[in-house]
Every structure is written in C-alpha cells, then in structure tokens.
C-alpha cells in the first residue's frame, strides 16, 4: 500500500515536471535562436548557439521596433490608468449607491459582456472613422478605456468591503467623493493590482484593434510590429531577428509577473468565482 502511494507520487511529479518542461521549451528554444547567427539557423545546427551573436537584437533596435515598444507602453499605461479610475468608479456606484435604475444597468452590462468583440468589429471601425480617429492612438485608448469584466470585479470588491468604515467617514463630514478617494481607495491595493496586471497585459497583447485602427508603421503597436517584422524577415529565414522581437515583447509582462505573481493567479480564481 505504502509503496503504491510512493509510485503514485513519483508519477505525479514526473507528469508535472514533464508538462512544465514542455511549457518552457518553446521559450528556451526561441531565446536560444535569438542569439544565433542567421547562417547557423539556416543550417539547422545545435540546441545552443555555436557562436553567440547579438545580431538579431541589433537589427531590431536599429529598426522601428523601439518606437513600437514605446507606442505600446504609452497606450498601455494610459489605458490601464483610465480603466483603474473608471471601472472602479462604476463598480462602486453599482455596489454602493442605491440610485434609480441600478438593477437595470447592471443587467444590461451583464448582457453586453457576452457579446464577442468581432460582432461589432466592422461597425466599431465605421464609428471610429466617423469620429475621425482612424490611425490615431486615441482610437485605441478610447475604445479600451472601460472593461465590463473589471467593473463587475470592483462591484464584487465593494459589496464585500465593510460599509461601517465608509459610514464613519461620512459622519466625520466627508462627501461621497471625499470618502471614495481618501478612505476607500487606499484600502483596495490588491484589487487595483489585479486590475492593473490584467488590463495592461490585455492591451499590450491586443492584436485585432490595432490592426483595424492603425495603419502607419510609426504608430504601430508592438503586436502589429511583430507581425510586420515577421513578414519582413521570414523569407530571408532571419529567425534570430524575429525571435529577438518576440522575446523582447514578452519581457515587460514577465517583469510584471515576477513582481505581482500572486495577483495573476488570484484573479484567475476570482473570474471563476463570478460566473
């Protein structure tokens, strides 16, 4: 019996290690490729580079790549900031302010969250173009500065937040806005961190919207840039350049992940809890 359990445990570890290695492998292989020379890549070659070369990285940094990284950073930060403020405000109202039509708005948002983005893809483009926003960064910021999923997450947060603390602040003479910004906001670091992580990741990795709205290369977002990069270098089999680009695009999210690891995993739990 005891021996049986030990074998079982060993199998569990082997399976988990196996899948972890399988997960890591494509990334390690790309990292290794990004340091190879194009000649070595064409020849097939070994797992690790024979001659370490930073040619790939040099090539992308002398191209428009840094501009794309900057574009993604600027748009990403702006979108994240606006989402934090607006989603939180909306979530607060839905959880705490008993106004007329609240239930109606809530049900309505619940309905809208289910509509996939490609249904509205073309009409959204028409509206953005009617507003004269095509090929501007504002088109990306304006269309993504609200996220209903996180409005619901914040609503959930406020539903669980002790009301007494707020009431005490009101008794002390703070207005609703005052209570919100000076009492509630400092108490919700974890919820805000979760939002930050996922909103930023969402816009950093977004592909379809930039593809629809942005047409001039100097305004490309990084994901679009990667696509352009691959078109440019694939026929010349310069996979070192393409992989260097892919690796660099992952790094900012990886840093966020290492710093805020627990929020990534927890938010996944929470989204499951809401449904």
């Amino acid at each position, binding site marked *: 019996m005891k021996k049986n359990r030990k074998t079982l445990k060993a199998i569990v570890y082997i*399976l*988990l290690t196996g899948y*972890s290695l399988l*997960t890591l492998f*494509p*990334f390690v*292989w*790309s990292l290794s*490729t990004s340091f190879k020379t194009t000649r070595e890549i064409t020849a097939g070659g070994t797992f690790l580079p024979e001659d370490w070369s930073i040619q790939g990285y040099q090539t992308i940094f002398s191209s428009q790549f840094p501009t794309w990284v900057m574009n993604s950073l600027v748009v990403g930060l702006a979108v994240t900031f606006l989402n934090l*403020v*607006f989603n939180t*405000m*909306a979530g607060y*109202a*839905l959880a705490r*302010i*008993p*106004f*007329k039509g609240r239930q109606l708005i809530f049900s309505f948002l*619940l*309905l*809208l969250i*289910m*509509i*996939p983005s*490609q249904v*509205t*893809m*073309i*009409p959204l*483009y028409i*509206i953005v173009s009617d507003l004269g926003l095509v090929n501007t960064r504002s088109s990306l910021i*304006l269309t993504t*500065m*609200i996220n*209903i999923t996180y409005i619901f997450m914040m609503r959930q947060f406020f539903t669980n937040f002790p009301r007494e603390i707020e009431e005490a602040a009101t008794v002390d003479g703070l207005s*609703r806005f005052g209570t919100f910004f000076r009492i509630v906001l400092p108490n919700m670091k974890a919820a805000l961190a979760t939002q930050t992580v996922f909103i930023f*990741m969402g816009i950093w*990795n977004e*592909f*379809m919207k930039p593809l629809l709205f942005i047409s001039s290369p100097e305004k490309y977002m990084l*994901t679009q840039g*990667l*696509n352009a990069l*691959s078109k440019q270098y694939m026929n010349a*089999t310069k*996979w070192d350049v*393409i*992989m260097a*680009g*892919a690796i660099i*695009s992952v790094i900012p*999210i990886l840093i966020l*992940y290492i710093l805020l690891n627990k929020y*990534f*995993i927890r938010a*996944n*739990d929470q989204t*499951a809890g809401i*449904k």
Partner: protein
Amino acid sequence: MGSKYRQTVQGYSFLLPALAVILVFTLIPIVYAFLLMFFKVDLLSGEKTFVGLQNFEKIFSDPKFWAAFENTARYVLVVVPVQTLIALLLAVLLNSKIRFDRIFLSVMFLPTLTSSSAMTLIFMWLFNNNGLVVNLIRDLFGVKIQFVTNPDLALTVIMTMNIFSTVPHFMIVFLSGLQDIPAALYEAAAIDGAGKVKQFLHVTVPQLMPITFYVITMGVVGCFQIFDQAFIMSNGSGGPQNSTLTFTLYIYSWPSTAMTWEGRRRWPLSSGSSF
C-alpha cells in the same frame, strides 16, 4: 426625496465615463450591426441600400463561408475536449498535496502571459518547414511533414498553439474548484470503500460539474473568436487553401455583409456562456 434625487445624480455621475464609452463603442456598433444586416453598404461612400435578406443568400452561397464554418467546427471539436481534459488533469495533479506546486504553477502559467502574436511567431518557428518539430520528425521517422504549408495540417498547428496557451488559465479555474470541494466528501467515500479512481469519478467529477460547464462554454466561445493566430500565420488570407480561415478572419476579410450575419448567428451561443 431630496436625498434620493442626490443619490441618483451621484450614481450616474460615477457611472458616466463607463456608460458613455459603452454607448459609443459597444452599444451603437451592435445596433448598427443589426441594421446593416439588411443593407448593402459601400464602405467608401457610406451609401446604404436596403436589400432585405440578400446578404444572407450571398453568405450561404459563398464557399469561403462554408470553409470557415467547417474549420471552426473542427476547431471546436478538437480544441475544447483536449484543453478541458489537460487542464483538469493538471489541476488534479497540482491539487494532490505535492511540494513545489507554486513553482509548477508559475512555470505553467507562462503561455498565458505571452501575446498571441509572439506565441504565433514562436510556433511558426517550431513548425516551420526548416523548424525544430519538422526536423525532429524527419530524424526520428524519416518523413518530412510540412505543417505550415500543408492545408491538412496548418490548422493543427493553430489548434496546438491555442491549447498550449489556454490550458494554464483553465487549469487554475479547475484548481480553485477542486480546492472548494469539502474534504469530508472524500473521507465519506473512503469509508464506503471507494479507491482513488472511484473517488475521482464519484466525488470530484460531479462536484466540478459547474466549473467544467464554465470551462467548456468559455472554450467554445474562445474558439469562435480565434483570429490573431490565423491572421498572422496565413498573412490574413486564411490560406493555404482556406484551411486556416476562421469565422473572425472571414468577417475581417469581407466587411460589407458578412459580419452582421455572423453576429446574429453567434448570439445564442454567447449568451449561453452567462450561466
């Protein structure tokens, strides 16, 4: 009465930014999509003529629509069961009171962080005609299988990639579901003489039903939305020979009429995901 009025004003002012964005960039496009369904639209001049149901006829007689339909159906049939099973298996393994579960979890989560464009490039490099997977199969079995350019296999690459990057998220959803199952149920089953396998089939599986339902619906919805990977791999064409043409790519490639019909078709499906 006065305070009630104030509450309402406050409520709506907190919700104002969210509602404004949703109105302009979600609601109006949806209504627009419904109206456009019956019109022929010239995107350049913006001229609309009422054509009744002609758009539907056009779609149904378009072989590309059926190609997209078939691809998406195949996609759902393969991807959803496979990703659900792998995610469930990994979650069960991670939940079996092992050490280092945190490390396994963190490593396995990596693909979820990577943008679809970077992921696609990495997979294209792996499955490229001169790529690692192709060379490995050649060395082991002596056959050269060209994944990316073979119409029968191009979609398989996208499926693999999709499974690879969605498994971690669903794994965590399952994991949190598993942790919510009361230990008492297992103890009772053990007393009744149920072994590990029986416990899994008669306790774990039924207890996880709601979570599994969520994972499957989200999986199906996700499959219908596949776009980035197919776009990048096929350069936006859905090739080779329409083998990677997904619904969304189809909508993207033929804006004037297609999307409206698609939009309606998907509605009942996506509203299913709410439960």
